[in-house]
């Protein structure tokens, strides 16, 4: 089995994701408030994964013209690499918070969809916005807005409240779960379009 080669400029973001994710797990487990302790790691993980996915999507745009299927395979590998790097931490967190296995499975499914969506955003913005500064504001500003905006409006579609709700088996997580599943389908569909082969 041949694995895609990780671009050199993505090694540090993956290492950072791993180190900060582990730090996030320890911070969550040591947090004094019981309720925060049950959700903090998931929120940290969603934040770190979103940032990493945007960077991967952007880096992939610079990889050059390739077949759509190959592009999809590469992005899927990078997305699942991040997920698998986080998985041992999620296993530990499940044990320490007593979350059900169904919650664990839904949370990992949500994280994979979340990764695909933000990879799509990173990839798309790299093609649409030429200015580095404007692109920086758009990609990270948009991500922060997508995380915090729904919290202020009390919409259950932010990864910050969807992930803990899925984890605890609450129905409040379903709208955000299905929204991200749908958006990840759109993201995958856009990569599969033949023109991404020419544009790169």
């Amino acid at each position: 089995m041949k694995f895609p080669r990780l671009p050199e400029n993505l090694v540090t973001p993956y290492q950072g994701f791993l180190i900060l994710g582990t730090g996030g797990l320890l911070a969550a487990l040591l947090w004094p408030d019981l309720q925060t302790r049950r959700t903090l790691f998931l929120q940290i993980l969603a934040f770190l994964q979103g940032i990493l996915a945007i960077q991967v999507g952007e880096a992939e745009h610079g990889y050059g013209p390739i077949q759509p299927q190959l592009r999809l395979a590469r992005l899927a590998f990078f997305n699942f690499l991040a997920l698998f790097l986080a998985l041992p931490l999620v296993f530990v967190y499940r044990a320490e918070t007593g979350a059900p296995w169904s919650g664990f499975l839904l949370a990992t499914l949500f994280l994979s969809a979340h990764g695909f969506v933000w990879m799509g955003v990173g990839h798309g913005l790299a093609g649409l916005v030429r200015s580095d500064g404007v692109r920086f504001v758009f990609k990270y500003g948009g991500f922060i807005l997508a995380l915090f905006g729904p919290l202020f409006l009390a919409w259950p579609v932010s990864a910050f409240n969807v992930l803990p709700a899925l984890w605890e088996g609450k129905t409040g997580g379903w709208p955000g779960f299905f929204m991200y599943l749908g958006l990840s389908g759109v993201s995958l569909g856009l990569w599969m379009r033949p023109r991404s082969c020419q544009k790169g």
Partner: protein
Amino acid sequence: MILLLVLLAFRGFSLEIGLELGWAGWPVLDAVNPLWITISNPDSAAVRGKLLVTMEFGSAWRGAGTYTATVPFVVGAFSKTRFLLPWPVRAGSFLVRATAFSGKEKLGEGELRFSVEPGPLRASVGPPPKPVDFLFSPADLPADPLLLSPFSELQVSIPLRTSEKDVVQAWQVFLSGEVRVEAEVLRDYLAGLRPASSRWLVLLPGLFLYVLGLTLALPRLAQGRPQLPIFLLAVFLAFSLVYSVSRESANTKSSVLIRIERPGFTSFCLEVLGIAPWVNEEMVLDGWWVEFLPGREWQGRDLLWRFASEAWQTVIRLEPGVPRLLFRITQEAPLSGEVILPPPWLSRGLSLSWSQATVMRAGEIYVVRLQ
């Protein structure tokens, strides 16, 4: 034919259900009020069934919950049966509904809309020396002192029998302010409890090795040599999965039971039970327990009281991360155990005259004995 159909459609229930809440019909907010339910059977056949009593409380801002009680009943031909339930009245509650069922068939329904008294009432047993809201005859005194919680004053002006005196003295010790439970302090203490502490001796070295190993191995993915990072990832995945499964059997909740008693003065004791759940589960407690509610976040703080095996049980749906604090007044034999100094959380969690109290530890129970 049409008349028959109309009659069938508007057929009345076979039972009549009447409800009365509160002493003299005045339910007091945040107190356990008496709820009398009378089932009348106007038919010539006895009826056996189950009574379901429900009341919603709270609001969109505080969160809403439901109190439910189920009790089996038998009511003879042309007769009545009456139940008395210790019913907590909360902010946002204004309707209590009772429905009688036999299997799935609804036999009768009654409801009571009420408005609550914001403050406690004053009562007297016997002729009152000053005006009161409610006058008890000794026969009216409830067997459960909890039902006297709507009163801030209870004057006794006539001699009482021992059992009646016992109830009044239980009210005096546990409900009139001599002992006060600082629920927020106890809830804070519960929030810090965990059923089983993390296995840091395994966890910390494991996480350190994981981060170190993968951080060093990740650059190999960029060099087209993925074997080592994938091997390491597989090893740590397997270890973490084993860790996760091995912790399945860890306790799912922590709890603390405090019993406050004053032997020789009253045979009743106040029990306060704090639970810090770690997983979603249902817990069944013997007896009729009532919850100390926090200021808000009432969503899901439902309680179900059911009469089963000739006794009441309280069923609580536990949610992870949501500590629950319940209490009841019961008659138990005095416990003895190892005398200890009151832990700081206990001395802050109970307002009482600590200089006249002894704390004992009897297994998992903290016994506070008042002199």
